[in-house]
């Protein structure tokens, strides 16, 4: 368990996270967060999405700076390729969420990570999005993530880090479980 004499440093403030967990289990209303993004169409399949503010702990917050994400489609799709495709951005979200989780869980378990690299791949049959075959789903037919991790731990301990990070990951949950999506228009 983490203690003040520990020399393990993955750059994660576990004490703060554990403190938050303790505080929020007695004040569930403060745990209600709302994450937001605003997206504007540019041209063709190109859009720019900006992430700036979010709500949590009972009040509005801003990121230190606003972040913007260009999304487009590659030339294979007769587009201009001004950014990653939206499905690639989903992979970015999943890989970065799992990786953050691995670092946090490792810190909590007193495991020093030296390097942690993931490759992620989502398979897709585009007959779905093109409307060629209505039995083919639009989304990924499967996602594979491969981790290469160098850490001061046994193979089983490293496997357990990766498994625990999936168990606690928001994006893993978003991808593996259904979510109600409501879209309206002015």
């Amino acid at each position, binding site marked *: *368990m983490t203690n003040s004499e520990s020399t393990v440093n993955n750059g994660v403030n576990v004490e703060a996270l554990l403190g938050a967990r303790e505080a929020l*289990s007695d004040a*569930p209303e403060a745990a209600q967060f709302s994450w937001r993004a605003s997206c504007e169409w540019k041209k063709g399949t190109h859009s720019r999405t900006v992430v700036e503010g979010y709500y949590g702990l009972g009040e509005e917050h801003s990121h230190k700076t606003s972040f913007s994400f260009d999304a487009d489609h590659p030339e294979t799709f007769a587009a201009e390729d001004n950014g990653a495709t939206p499905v690639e951005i989903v992979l970015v979200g999943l890989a970065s969420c799992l990786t953050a989780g691995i670092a946090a869980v490792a810190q909590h378990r007193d495991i020093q990570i030296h390097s942690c690299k993931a490759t992620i791949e989502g398979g897709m049959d585009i007959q779905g999005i093109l409307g060629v075959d209505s039995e083919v789903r639009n989304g990924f037919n*499967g996602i594979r993530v491969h981790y290469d991790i160098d850490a001061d731990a046994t193979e*089983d301990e490293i*496997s*357990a880090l990766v*498994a*625990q990070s*999936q*168990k606690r990951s928001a994006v*893993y949950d978003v*991808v*593996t*479980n*259904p979510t109600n999506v409501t879209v309206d228009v002015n």
Partner: protein
Amino acid sequence: MGSLRKTTTVIIGAGHAGLAMSKCLSDLGVDHIVLERGQVANSWCAERWDSLRLLTPNWQSRLPGYSYKGDEPNGYRSMPEVIQFISDYANFISAPVQVNTNVLKVRATEYGFKLLTSQGEWECKTLVVASGACNIPNVPKIAKNIASKLETFTPIQYRNPDQLPQGGVLVVGASATGVQLANEIHLSGRPVTLSVGEHVRVPRFYRGRDIKWWMDASGLLDESYDEIDDLRRARRVPSLQLTGSKNPIILDLNHLSSIGVKLVGRVAGMNEGSLQISGSLKNITKLADLKMDRLLDGIDEWAEKNFLNGEIGKSERFKTTNVDESPSLAIDITSGEVKTIIWATGFRPDLSWLDVPVLNHKGEIRHNGGIVEYPGMYLLGMQFLRKRKSSLIDGAGDDARFLSKHLRAYIDGSLT
């Protein structure tokens, strides 16, 4: 309604926990009554399926002043045997049990507590809640939408496969209840799909001994609530994936898939006529495999230190759980393939009668090792109340011994 009766302590529930407390209070000379909604060992009589046997071996059900004397210490009690055991204990300790007394309301008074029951009112200075951890089946919200389309059962309603229509059965939950029901229903000729959420995989036997022997001998079951890293989580860990049977087997997911039970992920939602299944099955089984190996590593270490290596079987590891490359992500409940759903998704206590402000936002009693936040009130029989074994019959004794002393000191005004 009778007149108001007074006693020092009312114990609610005449199961193993309430009776253990009754014995300890008698030993300390505390005047008390045990109120029981039905008969002694009521849940075991009325709310369990026919084939169920205790998950702990006979020798392990030790109650204050009482233990197993038969010639099958390693067997597992059937339900009639559990009922007999607990009733014999009630007689042995001459417990002051008032049966057929349903507690309808409990509120705090200046004196202590006032109870409204189906047999009149009681007033007491101290109260022990031993009404059980498994009164109400925890079914997910979507169960409501499904009830009209399929036969549905909770483990409290289920008795045996003959109750179910012919055709497919979806068992939701892969802890002790889920794997046992999946096994017997599949063997009855009804094709079973098992929806697997988080579970605790352990082998029934390891190195020639019952896993419960190892957990007891190595001190794991005696781990205390104030030494545990994440108590909130420890109190929610699902039941061990075990079965107690006449001819005991290792009833794990590999065994179930080998006999033809189909494994799918956790039920995550419902969309029109289709149950949506989580894509996390691989990770769920991986977590359980790794966790089992950690338990077995700990047992091996303990065996090594305690010079048991010559007397016991060789260390071994079990096959990792085998799941399909791409398990189904949806189950169509309108196709007729599945006729029945069984929700083996856990239980929670029924505290609807409790009108004392001690519940947290999840409806659980706030307590510190069984000492409830409200002075004079005590809790027993809950998961990891004071020790890892608190929810077992074998755990009630230690908890009752400690809490009865605290209760006595509270009455005497000598609490420090």
